[in-house]
Structure formats: C-alpha cells, structure tokens
C-alpha cells in the first residue's frame, strides 16, 4: 500500500479505501458521455471528522479531491479530471433531524432522495420534499449543489432555493456553518437576514468545499395527487399556456414533453400538470380552475386536455418518475444524455425546433422534456438523446448534437445547467468580466491550492 492509501485507511478504515484497478475503473466515469479519467484513490467516509481529515491530508499533499454523490449528474462532474481522491459520500446517509412545525429536515451530505422520501412517508406523512426525477440513489447535497429541480420547483424555485442551512468542510479542512445555524441552533434560513454565504458553495460542484450537512425545507404533503395532460400542436403557444397555468397558483409541477414515439405522443407537445389536494373537493376545485385557465386555447382549437387512461397514471404519478430512465434504454445499450439549459419559457418553440432539427440531422432518438421553474420565471429545457453504448458511431453523433445544443443554448440566451467542463469554459468566456473576476477571487481565496474538484469552474 502507498503512503496515501495507508493514511486514508487510518482515517476511514481499510475497508473503505481503495486504489485498486476495478474500483478506479468505475469511479473514472459516469453514465453520460464524458471521457473517463481514473482516480488514484477512492475513499468512503462515514463522519464529518473523517471528511475533514481526508481534506487536510489532500491539502497537505496537494492531491485533488472530488466529492461524489450517486454520480448521476451525467455531465462528468464527478470524473476526477486530474486524478486524486474521489470521496464517495454514500455512507453519510442519515436523516439527522426533522423540525416538523418549522418544516425542514437536516440530512447528512450523502443522503439520497429515495431515502428521505421513504423516511418522510413513514414518519412524517404530512411533509414532503422536492424530489427530482433522477434515480432514487441521487443525493440531496449533490442535487442542491448542481441547482437541481424537483416536483416542487414550479412552486418554490430551484431545489437549492429550498436549502435552509449548510455545514461545509472547507478546502482547509475547517468546518463552516452557513445560514441561521451559524448563530442559532435552528436551521431555518441559509442566509437571510445575514449575508447569504450559501452562494459560495452551491453551484460550485464541490470546487469550494464539501457539504457534510444540508437543511432542506419541507412542504405540505397533500393526501391526493392527480395528473392532467394538455396537448397542443402549437409549440409557439406553450409559453402563453404556461403563463395562464402558473397564474392559477394551483398546479404542483408543470412538465412539458414532446417525443415521436409511442404514436400517442407524435406531433404534439404535452403539458403535464400535477395537482394535489387533501380532499376530493379541493382537488376538483383546482382541476376546474386549471382547466378553465386554458379555455381560450380550447375554444380556438389550439389545445385540449387529453384523456389520461387510468393505466397511464401510476407511471406519471410515480416519484421519481421512471419513464425518463426507461427512455434511456430506447435504443438498448443504456446510453442517455441530456443537455438541459435553464432558459426563458418564451424560448420553448425555438428549443423544440432545434431539438428536432438535430435529431433528424444526426439521426438520433430524442425527447424534449422541460420543467417550469417558479411561476414561469424560467424552465429547464432538456434536449435528451438516447444511444447505444456499443455503437461508437451513434455515441459520436450524440456528442456532436450535444455540442451544437451547447452553442445554441448560449446564443439563445440560456444558461447551462450542470455544465460539462467545456460548457463551463464557454460560459466563463461569455461572462461579464467583473463577475468572472469575482468568481476567481472566491475560488482562489477558498481553495488557493486548487485541489477541490479541479478542472471545474476554473477561471484563468
């Protein structure tokens, strides 16, 4: 064993450290399309103290450190571009405290969305969190780190907007509390009314620190959920429809999808609306308001509510919704990648046309999947392609299509979500120079040695 391996083993125990080829193979890649790069060590800590010690060791030896959740962000953000130590956070998976009346939970930095959902359902059936549609193993800390979006995003913004406190291990190895918890035992706010320091970490992909605890806001969980689908063949009208729907303030989540198969979905755009209620009466009242908000489009024959057969409902109501994962295997060979810029809802038609153009140009199976963020404040528009990993030509075509998406998204006024390192570079180049300098100042003051997830958010 090398010295570093021995030192790591002293911190976490021999069982939880590895520099073996087989581990390195897996930790060198994610399920997306980015090229693999092997780590030198993989370590799986269980406590904050262990994380601190690992980071101190890395800092002393100037070894890169890459925190990792479930590795499901798909854009290479957990690939150790410069080798070093991958810190797999999965053992730090406890739900620490639930503050029922204040509606927030504190979890450890490797807790998965699936675990929290199950925990709340069992112990706090009137509370829920904003669950994304990623596989249930995806972690909460990583999801807020990349500004993910979930079921409650239309109502409350990005999942990171729902953070109400953080505990972070800084690149120096010190623990830092962010938000009300820095002065109070209560974790109800990530910043206000003090300066909001959470921005020094959220969105940085672990390049400024490792989250070891997250407090996340919880929301009322109504007893009944239902789903409606409004279909239209007028992509240019989708933003107007979303505007009317969000005006009702009665929809839980708004997703839009368009795809050529199965035939039931061909040629149309589907605005999927989720509604909730504690009673049938409440649900029906909301349904009525929601249907009426789109009456104008029904009258002009530009759209209508389709009949959602009971057999389709469980799939749609599932959380996370597994249809996305199923789409990932349409071409067999399990390849799935999407570029999901955050962009103005008004750009829906432009995005959708671009996706179809690219799919036909590169002969790829595609799906458009958008999620409305806030009351139509923006959306994540997913340009999703599925490919067969055993078909290098198809992989290359997908890569080219995604590259074109990246160029298009920026030109259309979009901002990359969970950008690849190339996209980060493109964004940095385009960024206002003073903002760029500010980012550089933050990064160099927090991580002067550049050991934290190097390659990411590097401003030169």
């Amino acid at each position, binding site marked *: 064993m090398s010295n570093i391996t021995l030192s790591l083993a002293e911190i976490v125990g021999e069982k939880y450290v590895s520099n073996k080829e087989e581990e390195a193979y897996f930790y060198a890649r994610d399920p997306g399309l980015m090229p693999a790069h092997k780590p030198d060590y993989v370590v799986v800590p269980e406590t904050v103290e262990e994380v601190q010690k690992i980071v101190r060791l890395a800092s002393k030896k100037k070894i890169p450190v890459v925190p990792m959740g479930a590795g499901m962000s798909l854009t290479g953000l957990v690939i150790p571009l410069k080798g070093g130590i991958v810190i797999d956070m999965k053992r730090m998976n406890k739900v620490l405290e639930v503050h029922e009346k204040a509606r927030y939970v504190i979890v450890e930095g490797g807790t998965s969305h699936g675990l929290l959902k199950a925990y709340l359902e069992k112990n706090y059936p009137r509370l829920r969190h904003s669950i994304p549609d990623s596989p249930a193993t995806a972690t909460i800390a990583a999801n807020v780190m990349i500004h993910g979006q979930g079921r409650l995003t239309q109502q409350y913004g990005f999942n990171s907007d729902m953070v109400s406190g953080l505990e972070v291990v800084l690149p120096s190895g010190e623990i830092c509390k962010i938000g009300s918890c820095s002065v109070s035992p209560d974790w109800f706010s990530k910043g206000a009314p003090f300066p909001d320091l959470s921005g020094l970490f959220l969105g940085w992909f672990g390049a400024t620190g490792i989250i070891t605890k997250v407090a996340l806001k919880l929301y009322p969980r109504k007893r009944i959920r239902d789903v409606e689908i409004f279909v239209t063949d007028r992509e240019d009208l989708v933003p107007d429809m979303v505007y009317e729907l969000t005006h009702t303030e009665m929809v839980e989540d708004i997703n839009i999808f368009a795809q050529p198969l199965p035939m039931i979905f061909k*040629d149309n755009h589907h605005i999927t609306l989720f509604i909730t209620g504690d009673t049938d009466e409440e649900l029906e009242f909301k349904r009525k308001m929601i*249907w*009426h908000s789109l009456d104008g*489009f*029904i009258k002009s024959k530009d759209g*209508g*509510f389709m*009949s959602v057969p009971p057999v389709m409902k469980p799939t749609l109501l599932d959380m996370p919704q597994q249809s996305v994962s199923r789409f990932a295997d349409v071409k067999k060979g399990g390849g799935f990648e999407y570029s999901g810029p955050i962009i103005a809802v008004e750009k829906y038609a432009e995005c959708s046309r671009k996706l179809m153009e690219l799919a036909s140009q590169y002969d790829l199976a595609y799906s458009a999947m958008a999620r409305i963020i806030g009351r139509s404040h923006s959306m994540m528009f997913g340009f999703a392609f599925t490919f067969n990993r055993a078909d290098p030509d198809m992989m290359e075509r997908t890569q080219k299509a995604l590259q074109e998406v990246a160029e298009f998204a920026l030109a259309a006024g979009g901002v990359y979500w969970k950008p690849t390192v190339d996209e980060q570079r493109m964004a940095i180049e385009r960024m206002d120079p003073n903002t760029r300098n500010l980012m550089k100042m933050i990064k160099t003051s927090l991580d002067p040695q550049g050991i934290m997830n190097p390659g990411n958010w590097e401003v030169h």
Partner: protein
Amino acid sequence: MYTLEFDENLCKTCPTCDCLVKCQYMDLSVDEAKEEMIKIINGDDSFVLQDCVTCYGCEEYCKRGNHPFYLITERREEKGILTAPRAITKQWINIGEPRGKFKTGDIKKKILSFGFMPELLELTQGRLFDDLMPSYVFGQEFFCNVVYIHFANTSIIKERLPMVIDNFRKLDVEEVVCMHDECYGSFASLAPAYGMEVPFKPIHYFEYLYNRLRELGDEIGPLNIKVAYQRPCSSRLSSEKHHFVADIMQLVGAELVERRYQNENALCCGDVLGMIYGYDLRNDIQKRNIDDMVEHGAGYCVFNCPACQNALAAKVTKRGIRPIHIIDLCRMAIGEK
C-alpha cells in the same frame, strides 16, 4: 371515393324532425329543426354545425333510416369546422394508425373483434367465451375508426375503414362478434351508409352474450342487485341492439333502475366531450348522470364501453356505486366472479 347515401326527401317530408328536436344539447322546435336540416342538406351555414357536441344521439332519434349525424360530420369537414382541438384529433389519428403490430388468435369462421381496445383482451375470459376464444383479432388493423366522427373527420374513415374491412376479408371469416359498439356500428351502420361492402356478418356482442347466457341457463344465479346502465355514445349507431341490455339484465336477475337518463335520454360518459369542449360540459354531464344513478338507488353501474368505464369508474365509486363491465356482470351471474 365513398360518399354518404343520404335521402334528403326523408328529411324534407319528416313530420317530427326528431333528430334535432330531441337533441339534449340544443333546443329546437320542429319548424326550426327542419329549417336547419335543410340548410345542412344544402351545404349552407347552420348553427347546428357549430353547436352539436357530437353525442351521436340524432342517429338514434331519426327513425326514418337517414343519417343526420354523419351528414353533420360531412358538412363540418367540408367547411373546415373543427370540433376538437387539432392536437386531440392528431393524437387519435396517430393512435389508430396501423403499424403492423396486430394480434390474431386461432382464427375460425367466427371470431371476436377487440378492435383496438386492450381492455377487451382481459374481459373475454371464462365460459361465456370458451366456444369462441382464442378466435380473435386485436390491433389497429382491425380498429373500426368510427371515433373520428367525433372529430368531424370522415376522410380518415373513408381511407382506413375499407382497409380494415379488407383485413377481415383476408381472414376469410363469416361472422365477426364485435366487442364494442363502435366496431359493430362501423360495419352495420357506417360502412353501409357510405356504400362500403362488408363481406361478413357483424354480430353485436350483446346478442352473443344473451345467447350464451341462455345456453348456460341453469348455471345462472340471479344477482338480485340494482343497476344503472351507462350507455355509450356509439351505442346510438346500433340502437336496434339496445334492448339486449334489458334482456340480459332480466336473465341475470339484475334490476335496471328506472332513471331519467336512460334509453334515448341517456347521457354519455362525457370524456370525449371534455376533450373537445372543456370542463363545464364534461362536468355537467357526468354530475347529472351520476346524481341520477345515486337518486335511483343503483348499487352498480354497468358499463358497455371500456372508455366510459375509464372515465367514470372512479367517480361512481366515490359515490358508493360499484363499477362493473357488463361481461363481468354476466360472469358474476354464472359464478365466475
């Protein structure tokens, strides 16, 4: 090209104009009804072309053998008057497109046709069907395409229905038991109205069920329940078979409650009307219908069409009424459920 065989004189000399006078969604006197029908016949504008909700009722109200609803549909299409939002029409046209994914069982001279309703594959089990199953067809290739009259689109019917008929012809079958009203209606009403030759004898599944139950005679244990029957829109295309509902209920010992919205005055499930016209119409129809079932003490709501069942099952259940398909009800009577 197929054209609708419509006898104008029957309308012009009609003393009652029941087609429009009896309409549940428009209020017309006999004179007004005649005036509007003549306008429609002449290809002139008529508010009926705008206001008809596509319940199919007039096909039954007309006792003179004309096809008022098919004519309304033709005229709407000629004038480009859309009933449904375009996206809904497209969706249905896409769903029905033959894709070579049909299923056939062990085909005999007499077969069951499930059209393109997967629920029917599940329903047709047990002794009621054991003399025919697995002689069946299922899939878009055998889908009757009648639903497009809701969407004022007869072109697609004229294009696809002959192909469907041809697919049956290729199977060399003599009798087709249609497991859905639309299927029966397409071969017994729509195809003849457009001069399409049907090379087999369509049999309504009610008739088949009735005869099978009689064969199983002794095995029927009276159900002693009170039921409301949910009549589907498409049953208006085969109103001459509607009496089998009462006949079957009598055989299985189920009491059909006498209610306001029954027989000619029945209300449809409202599902397609919601897709076309929105919340209020759908909600109004469904509410009046279910209230009526409850008021008249129905313990079961008996469905004929799986789509009606999809639309109303949860809603009647919430009002304390058990939803059941007529086939399951018959199976219950012979102790299979």
